[in-house]
């Protein structure tokens, strides 16, 4: 692994517990800056749990506990530190879920939401940022004439791109995608994958996917997780042609669930 490449984050000796159950075991992994890193592994291996640790979503439930560090660059803050405000973390780290989950508001208000939470009131600034976010999520041309329509009038693929626009509006440094295309048809999936490719010019992306071919297509780095452990991390090209670990090999060739 080339350690000279700039990193967006470093995960060090990371453990996570749901109450007394340890869901993630001693994970160490770099997150390369402005690259797409895919997390793959069978259901229940902890990849979503891991992803959600980055924006401290586990804080919402009592009894959850983090150990270790997720150091976020360039300012070297530990995302898991008690001193860090999870709301502030989520401003810098956007998230997109499996099912499109627009707010029951207009297209415009969906994208404006994060900016308003931040206290942005200037209409001009809002409009500029919303247009930029919708352009970056490749949705602008389809919605520019109906920004004040309900977000629910959009198709599933459009709704998902709206969620990406909403996440992009606050200029996040890291985007978390939790199976972003599993509820979409192949065309909409293709659009999101294309979008990820464009987005990585500006942001770092971490994606959980069950679709191995998708991981192979969109990511620069791939991490294979199994039973809460990081089994193998490496460049996607080498993982899909010559994985080092037999367990990775078995999973990506379809020899185990």
């Amino acid at each position, binding site marked *: 692994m080339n350690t000279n490449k700039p990193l967006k984050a470093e995960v060090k000796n990371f453990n996570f517990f749901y109450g007394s159950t340890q869901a993630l075991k001693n994970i160490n992994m770099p997150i390369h800056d402005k690259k797409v890193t895919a997390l793959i592994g069978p259901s229940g291996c902890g990849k979503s749990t891991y992803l959600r640790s980055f924006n401290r979503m586990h804080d919402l439930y009592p009894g959850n506990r983090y150990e270790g560090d997720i150091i976020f660059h360039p300012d070297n803050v530990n995302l898991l530190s008690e001193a860090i405000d999870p709301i502030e973390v989520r401003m810098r780290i956007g998230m997109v879920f499996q099912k499109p989950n627009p707010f029951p508001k207009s297209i415009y208000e969906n994208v404006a939401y994060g900016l308003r939470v931040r206290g942005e009131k200037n209409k001009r600034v809002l409009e500029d940022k919303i247009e930029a976010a919708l352009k970056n999520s490749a949705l602008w041309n389809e919605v520019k004439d109906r920004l004040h329509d309900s977000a629910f009038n959009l198709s599933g693929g459009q709704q998902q791109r709206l969620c990406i626009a909403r996440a992009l509006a606050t200029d996040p440094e890291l985007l978390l995608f939790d199976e972003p295309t599993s509820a979409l048809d192949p065309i909409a999936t293709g659009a999101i994958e294309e979008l990820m490719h464009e987005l990585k010019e500006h942001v770092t992306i971490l994606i959980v996917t069950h679709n191995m071919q998708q991981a192979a297509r969109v990511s620069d780095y791939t991490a294979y997780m199994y039973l809460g452990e990081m089994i193998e991390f490496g460049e996607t090209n080498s993982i*899909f*042609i010559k*994985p080092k670990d037999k367990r990775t*090999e*078995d999973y*990506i*060739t379809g*020899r*185990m*669930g």
Partner: protein
Amino acid sequence: MNDNQHLSSQYNEELAQLRTQVLQMGGLVETQVSAAMDAYISNQSTQLAEIVAADHKINNLEKNIDDHCAHIIAKRQPTASDLRLVLGIIKIVTDLERMGDEAKKIAKGTRRIHEAGQIPIQHSVGIHHLAEVALNLVRQALDAFARLDATQAQVVIRADNEVDAEFKSILRQLITHMMEDPRTITVAIEIIAIARAIERIGDHAKNIVEQVVFVVEGRDIRHLEESAL
């Protein structure tokens, strides 16, 4: 190589069938090469027509296997060792098919020598040994693929270098003969073509073991210096 079974038993079956087809093709090629060399060395013309006629079976197998590979890629999107196996096989069948062509060339050359009448030099040059070494390379290469054993690669690659060197020595001998007695030229040229075909068979065997190394270890050892293998 991964011996575990896929979740899809049909996929297992498809990959197993693919390997069986390649082995079948390999067996056919080995028979053809061996028969052609025998015919030349023992100076028999009885089998020649059969050898030439049987080449189409090899060609058909090549097309079938390529088609099978295309289907597996389209339907299964193979990865890791499965991907390397399919990619390796696509390359290996090309070499096998060309070996078949070389066998056909040997058979046709032998027939022409027969028709032209023989000359004593035919038996004085060391084609016999060259053929033996090359045929052995073919067997080792097929064996390496059948057992997916990459350890034989170096042996085969080194032996192929010997074949190349021996071919050059045969060429020198024949040039001497031709200079001494121009009446030998017609047949000597046929012998050169046959020796060249045998030498090429050795090269194809080498290519096959290189693919076996890629299939098994994921390393591309083509065009490397021997010291880097």
